[in-house]
Each structure stands twice: as structure tokens, then as C-alpha cells.
């Protein structure tokens, strides 16, 4: 019995001293619960909307006020004409535009009905659906309130328009997400595994003793994966165009260049992982836990970022995939050019440089 207790104690030492497994044991469940509890919700929260008010009368102001005072929406700006709608969507911040028809209040009194048009950015079908549901609820409340106060049967009707994705095909949302995941997987995971494999086999040492410079070794390792990833990206885009009939509104060349940028970002992340991990297993664990889960849960691929609590929104900013998904959704569905996505592009370039810098720094420490 004493021997057994001693054995158990030793086992606890192993676990306690291995910070990584300690993190997996306790960090993972906490992270999962928090993610599933907060991020994974279709509720919306302070979604930015724009108002296009052709009537500007007491009724529209009252309805706008109801929307603004709910916790679901925040009014970002007022538009003057329909022609501005596409522009604000392309900038990406505003998720819906509320359009009040001309003489809205007058019609409501005289004809007993008037119409609100809700134009939602359906590149993210989940959010678009939630937005229209919430607005519908606000309008219903309003209808009830006016019918209680004054006898009669005045009704505000709602008409929805799903911009960019009128049939709200969810495949339009999944294609950018899947493309991101696959590029990330092939690039980051495969490079980190293949570099750590050399470390495990001892061949890395041989390579470092050879006249090859370290950057040549690393470059030699990543070039095949760059090519494979580019082929992957092409296959995914072709599949989505020809099988899912997903339109590519923007420039294919820009899409290609941005994909190459994201591939390089992922590769540099893979190289960084390989400087930390000593074995293939570790590299795979870090890639799966550290890359796949955040990409699936926090990149906005499945769950809208705008509905997440602030801390998770902040964390999502550190995930390269989030920015790439914004970029490819912009190019494929909205047809935007570089002018609308230069910021996201710059962020990806910055992240790439950061990952490479840290890898070089870690490598130098190893030499010292």
C-alpha cells in the first residue's frame, strides 16, 4: 500500500511539473466552457446598424429610438440615399440598414400600414437572420403599443432583403471558413510537424552542421507546403464556384495574392511552433489545440464575433484566421477591392513579421 501511494505521488509530480499537461488538464475545460457559454450563441449584442430614413417624422423617430435603446443594436450612422447602402456594407462594420419609406408616419395613419425595409449583410447568414428576427420583434411591440393606445388596426410591415446572399446559403459562409481552416492546417500544422520530425530524427543537427544556412533549411522545408497550399486554395475556389455556385464578385488575382499572404502567415506560425515543440506529437497538439479550436470558435467562421463578450472579441483579434475570413468574404461575396481590406491585409503582414521575428529570436537563443 505504501509503495502504491508512493507511486501515485510520483504520478502527481509528473503532472504537476509538466506545465503543458497541467494546462491541458485545467486550461482546456475552462476555455471550452467559456467558449461554449459565451461565444457560441446566436444572440446578438450591440450590432452596428445604419438608418436610411426617407420620412424623418415623429413615427420613424420613435421606432429608431426603440431600436437604439435596445441592447441589441447601436446606430452607427444615418444615410441619405439607397446608393450609399452597398458602400457601408463593403466597409464591413455595419451589419444592417433600416430603410423607412417616404411619408412613413402619414401612410401609417391614413392607409393603416407602412413598410420598413431591413437590408442585412448576409455574408454571415446567422447574424443576418438574428438581426431580422430582433427587428421583427421590436416592430411587433411597436404595433401592439399603437393599437392599444388608439383604436384601429394600424400595422407596420417589415420587408427583408439579404444583401450579397439573397438565398442565405450557408455554404457561402462555410467556404471561406473551410478554406481558412484547410490552409491553416496544411501550412501551420504540416510545417511544424515536418520540422520537428527532423529534430526528432536527429537529421536537423546534420543539416545545421552542413554548409546550408539555417534560413535555407527552413525555406527548403516550407516551399513544398506553400505549393501544396496554393493548389489547395485553387481547388477550394474552383469547387465553390462550380459545385456550390458561389460567385466570386471581386478580383481573382487579389483573392490569390491574399491567399498566398495567409499561407505565409500560417507557415511562419508553423515555424514558430516548431521552435517551441521538440517532438512531432507536441507540435501536433499545439497546432490542433492552439490553432484549430480558435479558428473554428473565435474567427467568426461559425459564431458571430459581434455577439461575443468583449474579452473574447479582443482575443479574436489575435487570430490571423479572423482577418483572412473578413478578407475573403469581402472579395468573394462583396466584390471589394484592396481599398476596403488594406487594414486586414496590413494586420496579416504584421502578424507574419512578428511570428518570423520571434522564431529567429528563439533560434538565436538556442545557439548562444
Amino acid at each position, binding site marked *: 500500500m505504501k509503495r502504491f501511494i508512493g507511486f501515485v505521488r510520483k504520478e502527481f509530480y509528473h503532472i504537476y511539473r509538466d506545465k503543458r499537461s497541467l494546462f491541458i488538464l485545467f486550461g482546456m475545460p475552462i476555455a471550452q466552457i467559456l467558449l461554449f457559454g459565451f461565444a457560441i450563441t446566436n444572440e446578438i449584442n450591440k450590432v452596428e446598424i445604419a438608418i436610411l430614413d426617407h420620412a424623418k417624422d415623429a413615427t420613424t423617430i420613435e421606432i429608431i429610438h426603440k431600436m437604439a435603446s435596445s441592447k441589441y443594436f447601436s446606430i452607427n450612422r444615418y444615410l441619405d440615399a439607397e446608393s450609399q447602402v452597398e458602400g457601408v456594407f463593403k466597409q464591413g462594420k455595419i451589419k444592417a440598414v433600416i430603410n423607412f419609406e417616404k411619408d412613413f408616419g402619414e401612410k401609417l395613419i391614413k392607409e393603416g400600414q407602412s413598410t420598413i425595409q431591413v437590408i442585412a449583410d448576409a455574408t454571415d447568414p446567422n447574424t443576418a437572420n438574428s438581426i431580422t428576427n430582433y427587428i421583427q420583434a421590436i416592430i411587433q411591440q411597436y404595433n401592439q403599443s399603437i393599437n392599444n393606445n388608439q383604436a384601429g388596426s394600424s400595422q407596420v410591415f417589415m420587408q427583408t432583403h439579404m444583401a450579397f446572399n439573397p438565398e442565405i446559403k450557408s455554404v457561402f459562409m462555410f467556404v471561406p471558413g473551410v478554406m481558412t481552416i484547410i490552409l491553416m492546417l496544411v501550412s501551420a500544422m504540416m510545417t511544424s510537424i515536418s520540422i520537428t520530425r527532423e529534430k526528432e530524427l*536527429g*537529421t536537423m*543537427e*546534420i543539416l545545421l552542421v552542413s554548409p546550408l544556412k539555417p534560413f535555407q533549411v527552413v525555406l527548403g522545408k516550407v516551399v513544398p507546403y506553400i505549393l501544396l497550399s496554393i493548389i489547395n486554395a485553387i481547388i477550394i475556389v474552383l469547387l465553390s464556384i462550380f459545385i456550390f455556385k458561389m460567385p466570386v464578385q471581386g478580383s481573382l488575382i487579389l483573392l490569390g495574392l491574399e491567399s498566398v499572404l495567409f499561407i505565409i502567415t500560417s507557415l511562419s506560425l508553423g515555424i514558430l511552433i516548431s521552435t517551441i515543440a521538440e517532438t512531432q506529437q507536441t507540435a501536433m497538439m499545439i497546432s490542433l489545440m492552439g490553432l484549430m479550436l480558435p479558428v473554428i470558435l473565435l474567427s467568426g467562421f461559425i459564431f458571430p464575433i459581434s455577439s461575443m463578450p468583449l474579452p473574447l472579441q479582443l482575443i479574436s483579434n489575435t487570430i490571423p484566421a479572423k482577418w483572412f475570413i473578413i478578407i475573403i468574404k469581402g472579395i468573394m461575396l462583396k466584390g471589394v477591392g484592396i481599398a476596403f481590406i488594406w487594414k486586414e491585409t496590413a494586420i496579416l503582414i504584421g502578424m507574419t513579421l512578428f511570428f518570423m521575428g520571434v522564431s529567429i529570436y528563439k533560434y538565436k537563443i538556442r545557439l*548562444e
Partner: protein
Amino acid sequence: MSEENVIKVVELTKKFGAFLAVDAISFEVKAGEIFGFLGANGAGKTTAMKMLIGISKPSSGEASVAGFDVYTQTELIKKNIGYMSQKFALYDDLTVRENITFFGGIYGLSRSTIKEKIKVLVADLKLENIIDQLVGALPLGWKQKLSFSVSLLHDPKIVFLDEPTGGVDPITRRQFWEMIYHAADKGTTIFVTTHYMDEAEYCDRVSIMVNGKIEAMDRPKRLKEQYEASNLNEVFLQLARNSNPE
């Protein structure tokens, strides 16, 4: 054997934090010599060797390998040395021929030179039947012989062998040492670390490292006389006991 010193080491030191892994060692190795670098595991052999082959920067001291400085000319050192590590290090999923071609390539050998080298190796080592087999399918003894041949592919002046015979049977070890003699006869300097003391007897000269310091260095025969021991293992145990009174 010429009298030229191809490795010169003066007070070479490596610190990891407060720990002195290599403590001001000094020695010289002559061209064509088989120099045994002995010590227990953790004595600092591998650390010292890593500084000489240019993959670890010394904390202080001086050293030159093949006439090049270990601080400033590591690229030139790398071109002029061969290296075989204690971990077996050819690619299992490549054939023998592919491995030779790859390693020849990274040392800048031309295609025709590599073809020539493969021909010579096939004849010398009788590789006809295995040249196009995957390395992973070969027995360990074969792998080690191949690994050694690959480290000599670019005709280096010095070849560094880090525990080259770990885990193989005595007969294969004997064969391996015949290959080492053969290379040394052709003028290659051999720098070999090992903790097999019987193997050390094959060396022209050995140094014995204990706790980061070189405690003894001479011909195996002279060391045995000096310590009145019948074999090097006894010499080694005496040295280890003296520095570690327990």
C-alpha cells in the same frame, strides 16, 4: 602523420547560466590522427563538440578547426568537416541512393561527382542489393556504416563522430572501426566521442573529460602506464573517483 594541428583549442569554456558545462579545456589534434574524446554522459563532451562544429557559441576561450575560427568562420568550418551524430541520422523514408544524393547536394557536390561517389561506395561497401532500398528497412549496423560514409562524402579534412557506435553489437562495432581506420589512412582526421572504453583503445590519442574539465590526455598505452591500470576503463574510473569523492 603530419605534424600540422588541425584542431587547436585554448581555454575553451561554455556556461549555461551558472553551470560550467565545459571548463577551460585546451588541446590540439594533429592531421590524420584518431582523437578519442572520452567522458561519462554529462561530462561535457557533446557540448564541447558542438562548439567545434559551429552550432554552439563558446562563452570564452579560443578554438580553430581546419584553420578557421569558431567565432567568426563557422560557415567555412562547416564546409570542411563531416559530422555523424549519436542519433542515427539518415532519412528512413528515402532510399540509400536518395539519401546520398541529398546529402551530397547540400554539400554542393555536382551531380556527376555524386554519381561517381555512389559507384565507389557501392563497390567498397558491396551495396548492390540495397542501394535502392529504403533506409528504414536496413539493420542498424548498415545504417551506421552508411551514415559514416555520408559524413565523408565531401572529403572533409576532419570528421566529428558523436557516439557513433551506440547500441550496436561488438562485431559491427569492430567493422565500423575498420572503416574509421581506412578513412584515417587516407588522411582524414577523426574526432570521436565515446563512452565505450574498449573502443577508446583503438584511438591514437585520447582525452578524458570529467565534470567539464580534461583530466587526462595521452596515448592509451601511456595513460595505462601512468595510472598503473590494465585497461582504459580503470583509468577512467580512477579519474572519476578522484573528482567525485563519495
